[in-house]
């Protein structure tokens, strides 16, 4: 049995699914988190149920990737049940989609989610009347409290039973016989707004117009929403709403948001500093055992020397710096998302951003990038134009440091007493110059409108799930890669290959003011930015050289996983441009700093 889960953005779809399946759906308090169809399975009564979660859409006929994905799902999979998640506090708008879905003539169940919140807002909804109006069953539900879960499970069980019986009695010899018609209908529905004769606004691009059919549905939704919902007396403003009132004030709100961001950074840096000691004291004896073990097991020679040094070295950086950074950034990002604060940064920074040609919405992928930049690339899909996407992906690739990079940069900066101020100013300058230049070259600034979700108290399980997902890359990607690279670099040093680069010494010193080995470190960033400092750590650099080398490394190429994702999202040509830009940026930064910084 296949179930398609469809609903407006921000109705708590993922939270509902987490309730049902207990899986790791990302739950976020801003629009456009799930930009792909994710599937999960559930076993009820011995039958496997496939649940397809679609990205939030306002209408099946929307002009966007999300709506196309949802339509595609109906064309590709045999959907037995539509699970329409509706926000009980926003019936009027949500019902428009419900009507579109009900016109498809498929079995549908409507989950009236956030019913607890609706009640606390004084909204009372007559589920029976609503069900009669939509000719589909309606279930009051709350993902936060679990209300309605038992009823939902019961309903699904019954559906599974029915389906089982139906297939026993009638079978489906040709499999598709009764579906072709439905499919045709879906396709027609999808084209409703893309016609030439049906719309009253035909000067508009395909998918941009509103047809009379749309307006009729909206009118019906408005009427029904009014009919089925009543107010339960005067309502008290909840304290969370009062806070929201303050945060949404233009000037005071912006100051509060910036202060929260500052506290977050402070917390991150202090957490890394405080945790380093205890982690080191655990790691040191383990590393000694590993070193002795390797020396004892392997015959003495270059292999055992390299491994005995490289393996312990390769463990120190990931565990003492990257692990705490990934954990803390994961926690902070999850909190910002789940409380609903993140989109408020978009609003607060809209003006500042537009000066540099970046829309306020870009704040979401850019700040996600501080966690891990690979998923941040996917999140750029919420941006309105291709040009904007390319600009933001470029900024992510070249400038934004991910949590792993941040940790590592912090440690090399303090190890060499490099100038934090110079590095930070350099990075900010590059960010602004790149954003400004790119947005002039490829203008595509567009008008925006987006939802500000209500502030809410984050759910512990959501936060935990997100940290887990964001952290999972540590053991599968960060740790093995760093170990491998550590071994590779040790091998280079022990074998004396690095000495060959000495020939470049004169050139790199003259142009960038750094020794040849540090230049090699910059080249290594092609593989993974946070690996390069391992090379630096073994070099005798003075603060000036370190400042230049670290700046060049901090502003260079995207890591391999990012490159793969960039090709997937915007194509190979865009990646090629980003790589060229990245190298140009890194080298120009080196040259300029070498000229500017006093010797």
């Amino acid at each position, binding site marked *: 049995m296949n179930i398609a889960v469809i609903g407006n953005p921000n109705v708590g779809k993922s939270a509902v699914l987490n309730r049902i399946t207990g899986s790791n759906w990302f739950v976020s308090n801003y629009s456009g988190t799930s930009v792909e169809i994710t599937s999960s399975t559930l076993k009820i009564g011995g039958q496997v149920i496939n649940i397809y979660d679609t990205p939030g859409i306002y209408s099946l006929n929307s002009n966007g990737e999300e709506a196309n994905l949802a339509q595609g799902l109906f064309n590709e999979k045999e959907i037995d049940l539509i699970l329409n998640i509706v926000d009980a506090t926003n019936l009027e708008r949500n019902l428009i989609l419900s009507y579109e879905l009900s016109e498809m003539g498929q079995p549908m169940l409507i989950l009236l989610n956030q019913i607890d919140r609706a009640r606390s807002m004084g909204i009372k909804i007559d589920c029976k009347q609503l069900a009669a109006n939509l000719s589909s069953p309606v279930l009051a539900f709350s993902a936060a409290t679990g209300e309605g879960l038992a009823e939902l499970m019961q309903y699904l069980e019954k559906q599974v039973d029915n389906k089982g019986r139906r297939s026993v009695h009638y079978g489906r010899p040709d499999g598709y016989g009764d579906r072709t018609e439905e499919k045709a209908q879906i396709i027609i529905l999808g084209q409703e707004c893309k016609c030439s004769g049906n719309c009253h606004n035909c000067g508009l691009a395909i998918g941009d117009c*509103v047809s009379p059919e749309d307006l009729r549905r909206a009118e019906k939704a408005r009427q029904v929403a009014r009919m089925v919902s009543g107010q339960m007396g005067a309502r008290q403003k909840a304290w969370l709403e009062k806070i929201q009132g303050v945060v949404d004030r233009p000037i005071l709100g912006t100051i509060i948001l910036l202060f929260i961001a500052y506290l977050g950074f402070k917390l991150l840096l202090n957490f890394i500093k405080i945790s380093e000691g205890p982690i080191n004291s655990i790691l040191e004896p383990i590393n000694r055992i590993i070193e002795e073990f390797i020396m004892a097991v392997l015959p003495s020679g270059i292999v055992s020397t390299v491994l005995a040094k490289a393996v312990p070295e390769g463990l120190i950086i990931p565990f003492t710096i990257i692990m705490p950074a990934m954990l803390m950034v994961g926690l902070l990002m999850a909190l910002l998302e789940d409380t609903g604060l993140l989109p408020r940064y978009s609003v607060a920074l809209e003006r500042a951003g537009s000066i540099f040609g970046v829309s306020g919405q870009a704040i979401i992928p850019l700040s996600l990038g501080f966690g891990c930049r690979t998923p941040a690339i996917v999140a750029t899909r919420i941006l309105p134009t291709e040009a904007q996407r390319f600009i933001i992906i470029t900024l992510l690739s070249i400038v934004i440091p991910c949590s792993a990079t941040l940790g590592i940069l912090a440690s090399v900066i303090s190890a060499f007493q490099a100038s934090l101020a110079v590095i930070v100013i350099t990075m900010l300058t590059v960010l602004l110059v790149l954003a400004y230049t790119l947005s002039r070259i490829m203008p595509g600034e567009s008008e925006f409108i987006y939802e500000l979700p209500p502030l809410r108290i984050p759910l512990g399980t959501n936060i935990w799930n997100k940290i887990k997902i964001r952290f999972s890359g540590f053991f599968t990607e960060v740790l093995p890669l760093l170990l491998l690279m550590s071994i590779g670099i040790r091998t280079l040093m022990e074998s004396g290959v690095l000495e060959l680069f000495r020939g470049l010494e004169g050139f790199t010193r003259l142009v960038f003011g750094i020794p040849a080995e540090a230049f090699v470190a910059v080249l290594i960033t092609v593989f993974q930015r946070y690996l390069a400092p391992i090379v630096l750590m073994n070099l005798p650099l003075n603060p000036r050289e370190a400042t230049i080398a670290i700046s060049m490394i901090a502003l260079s190429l995207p890591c391999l996983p990012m490159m793969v994702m960039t090709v997937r999202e915007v194509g190979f040509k865009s990646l090629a441009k980003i790589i060229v830009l990245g190298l140009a940026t890194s080298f120009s930064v080196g040259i300029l700093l070498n000229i500017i910084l006093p010797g």
Partner: protein
Amino acid sequence: MLMTTMKPGHKVHVLEILNDNPMARRLYEMGIMPGAEIEMLSRHPFKGPLIIKVGNTTLALDRRIADSIVVEDC
């Protein structure tokens, strides 16, 4: 009057969305269509976004879009 001129706290009905607005569809999906009730919550300075309430949804809106939305007092 145009939506851009609304003061915070002001409640209005949408009369019409001026023609050939490529954002018409998006506005419709967000609940901004003729007949919808809208409250202005706040206006960000320096021609920044407008924060409005449609139903129980809070929206951030570009001023250039608000320029094409005609409203009247409730």
